């Protein structure tokens, strides 16, 4: 086992997989988005940015993804801070329960919300049965139901990612700062926050990227007004074989996410290289 | 002359822009125990890798019993290796670890059983044959590794700081044991270490390497009593060093020199020293003699410090011109800081070497 040949053989399958199913599709989508019936054109972009329903779909995606990200982080951050500062059996139990929840199919989770929130679902049934309401409430197929379902799916990710990141911070630094007489607020800002900031930014980014590309939840618990990109792309492709517009929305989404990532990293003073190193751990 | 068990001829190695090994020669005679001694980063590991076949030198040849093996991969070299980390296969018992090289060579089961028992007995671990690596101590693990490296009667044994991770007392025991086993099996051995004491205890011959070059080569006694350079003298132990110049043309080896204070000293010129160049005189503290009475070739001074070492004590004597000489003497000798005394040494004990390096 010597020489460059061996490296090539060992790395080739993995690299080819990623190339064929990540790089190539994005490349093809890029080409598709700039071409229409064999000619190069910006028509697809003009169409997507001006013709209904696309602008609305883009905006919806943005709003729902932002709401989901903010809520997921708000829900997960306190739990992550607390769990990361503890040790013992209970921590293991919380982390494993979160991990098990993560591994359960997204479809099952979405279906559970359908069962709970439907017009004839469990919550309406219980409320009607108890005589609290007389007409069933409309809960499913609203923006709120999409966001709640997506937060339920994303919060465990956010929590686990942040716990993993926060576990790596140097607790001795906190103790050292305390012995030097730092007060709580100062301690939090200067010592704790500076150490966990990068991990929180990364988590927020990952959750935002995940939420904006979400396909299943909005398709199954969102109303007709809550169409997100994924659904529109799927119906364009599968029903109309319209790959140009789907590719264009996909490229717009990718470009937007790249821009957000870049800005977030600039604001937190890190480079893509740091991200690569962070991801590699 | 017999064919050496291992010969490196002008091997070099470069990593990018940094030169790890300048043209380097090394021979190991059959049955010889050679220690490669050097500070960290001196190129020891590179030499070992080339000898083992895990590295291919950029230039030069590697000969094993006269056969060119420069480009032969490790598994064909027939070298036993012992590392600083124990590297026992955790999924195999002690006996299976030792049997591994024999099984790879498809030896008959009867031979395997015999040899495994013999070599485990040699390292004193026959009773632990059925244990797993996680159930034996560090010292025991290293003995298993040694048995495993010897069981296939390799053409060469390579040891890379095998005792560095082991605590001091046990390390001394294992030094004795490795030496005993090497003498019995007569396996040519290249032992790499940065520990001077270890090198001196164990070796037939020591090769000192520094910045990818051979800095000294000789028996432990030769290198200790007549070091080829100031650096080698200080690396191998404590030394009093004084810059000097020739006082008279050397007569054979014996030579008279003068230091900066004009003091006339005498010593033996080392063969590697160039009499025209800058010179230094080297004397081991053990050779310095401390007297209360004045004597010829002894200089008056004052004791500035005394440090108790058990069997001996170290005495620092400051001469009138400010030169501080370190002397080693019997601990029972009653001596205190402040005493006025005389210090000198037999002329044969002083070595004159080149002052460069």
């Amino acid at each position, binding site marked *: *086992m010597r020489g460059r040949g061996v*490296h090539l053989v*060992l*790395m080739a*399958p*993995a*690299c080819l*997989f990623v190339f*064929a*199913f*990540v790089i*190539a599709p994005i*490349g*093809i*989508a890029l080409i*598709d988005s700039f071409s229409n019936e064999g000619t190069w054109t910006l028509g697809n972009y003009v169409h997507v940015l001006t013709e209904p329903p696309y602008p609305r779909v883009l905006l919806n995606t943005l709003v729902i993804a932002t709401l989901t990200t903010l809520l997921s982080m708000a*829900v997960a951050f306190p739990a992550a801070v*607390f769990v990361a500062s503890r040790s013992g059996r209970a921590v293991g139990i*919380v982390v494993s*329960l979160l991990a*098990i929840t993560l*591994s*359960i*199919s997204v*479809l*099952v*989770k979405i*279906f*559970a919300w359908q*069962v709970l929130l*439907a017009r004839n*679902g*469990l919550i309406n*049934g219980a409320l009607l049965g108890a005589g609290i309401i007389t007409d069933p409430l409309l809960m499913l197929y609203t923006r709120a139901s999409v966001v709640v379902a997506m937060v*339920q799916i994303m*919060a*465990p990710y956010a929590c686990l990612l942040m716990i993993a990141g926060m576990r790596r911070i140097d607790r001795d630094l906190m103790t050292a700062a305390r012995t030097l007489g730092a007060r709580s607020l100062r301690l939090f800002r200067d010592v704790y926050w500076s150490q966990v900031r990068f991990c929180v930014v990364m988590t927020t980014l*990952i959750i935002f*990227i995940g939420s904006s*590309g979400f*396909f*299943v939840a909005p*398709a199954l618990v969102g109303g007709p007004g809550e169409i997100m990109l994924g659904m529109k792309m799927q119906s364009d492709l*599968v029903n109309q074989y319209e*790959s140009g517009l789907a590719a264009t*929305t996909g490229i717009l989404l*990718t470009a937007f996410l790249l821009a957000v990532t870049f800005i977030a990293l600039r604001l937190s003073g890190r480079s893509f290289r740091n991200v690569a*190193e962070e991801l*590699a751990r | 002359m017999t064919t050496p068990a291992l010969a490196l001829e002008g091997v070099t190695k470069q990593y990018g822009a940094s030169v790890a090994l300048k043209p380097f020669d090394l021979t190991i005679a059959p049955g010889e125990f050679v220690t490669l001694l050097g500070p960290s980063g001196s190129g020891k590991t590179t030499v070992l890798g080339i000898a083992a076949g895990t590295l291919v030198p950029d230039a030069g040849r590697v000969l094993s019993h006269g056969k060119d093996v420069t480009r032969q991969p*490790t598994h064909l*070299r027939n*070298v*036993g*290796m012992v590392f600083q*980390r124990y590297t026992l*296969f*955790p*999924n195999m018992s002690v006996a299976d670890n030792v049997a591994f*090289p024999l099984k790879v060579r498809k030896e008959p089961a009867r031979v395997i059983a015999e040899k495994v028992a013999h070599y485990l007995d040699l390292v004193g671990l026959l009773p632990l044959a059925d244990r797993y690596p*996680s159930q034996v101590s560090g010292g025991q693990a290293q003995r298993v590794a040694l048995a495993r490296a010897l069981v296939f009667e390799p053409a060469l044994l390579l040891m890379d700081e095998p005792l560095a991770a082991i605590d001091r007392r046990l390390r001394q025991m294992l030094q004795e044991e490795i030496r005993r086993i090497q003498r019995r099996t007569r396996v040519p051995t290249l032992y790499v270490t940065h520990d001077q004491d270890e090198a001196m205890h164990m070796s037939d011959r020591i090769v000192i390497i520094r910045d990818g070059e051979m800095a000294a080569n000789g028996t432990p006694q030769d290198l200790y009593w007549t070091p080829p350079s100031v650096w080698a003298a200080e690396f191998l132990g404590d030394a009093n060093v004084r810059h000097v110049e020739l006082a008279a043309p050397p007569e054979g080896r014996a030579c008279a020199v003068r230091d900066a204070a004009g003091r006339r000293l005498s010593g033996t010129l080392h063969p590697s020293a160039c009499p025209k160049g800058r010179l230094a005189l080297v004397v081991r503290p053990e050779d310095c003699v401390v007297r209360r009475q004045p004597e010829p070739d002894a200089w008056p001074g004052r004791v500035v410090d005394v440090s108790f070492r058990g069997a001996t004590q170290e005495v620092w004597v400051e001469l009138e011109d400010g030169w501080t000489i370190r002397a080693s003497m019997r601990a029972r000798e009653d001596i205190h800081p402040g005493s006025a005394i005389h210090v000198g040494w037999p002329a044969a004990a002083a070595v004159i070497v080149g002052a460069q390096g």
Partner: protein
Amino acid sequence: MNRPALRSVAGWTYCVLLLGFVMVPIAVMIPASFGSAEVLQFPPESFSLRWYREVLGDARWLDSAWLSFRLAIVAALLATLAGFMVAIEHMRFGRVRPLMRAYLLLPLIAPHIVLAAGLFSMLLQARLLGSPTALALAQCCLALPLAVVVLINAVEAIDPLLWTAASSLGARWWTVLLKVILPNLWLSLIVAALIAFNSAWDEVTFAVFFGPIQTPTLPSKMFSYLQELINPSVTAIATLLMTVTIVLALAAASIPRLIRRGGRR
């Protein structure tokens, strides 16, 4: 109560609430699947296995499950094999560089709908839309980063000198792999395969965009069911799916503990 204790109680209460929010909705479905009425009831008025009988007696559901199973097996095996090769490179020839590792993690981060859209037009041109093989390979790519992460972590626990030691003892590379590396790595290989299997088994987006249509994969079929009105038979399927997932997850989670115990042997 003193302040640290109060903080502790508040913290754990918050964690329990969070776990409740992410777990209870799922748990509610299980009793519902054992009801018998045409409409969902909680708690169900009578216990019955009606929906399970209906689902398990339906050849279309079983065909979908069998297809999903085969695809997931292929994806798991290929992803584990490719991940294993990366891990060997990592162990044998020095660390795989962070940028390369980030590249291998791309399938995890890139939005799947974008990949699905690009793959759709690629497969359309290649006339492979609906091909189970194409879907299996695509899902394998999504599972690959998971296998890579698991196996790189696993080989980092193995001393790379074991390889040199084995070579010096006369072993060729395949002997080293077979006799030294695999015996110390097989539990992690199983973990990697389980995780990769689960990822492919649950994959929805690719399956819906360009998976087989006549007999869709289980998640794809479930997706189209869920787009319609709620049908209690889906509670049974969801419960079965969830059971499979949890069993796989528990198996994958308990193996590292086995490894640690093995180390103390």
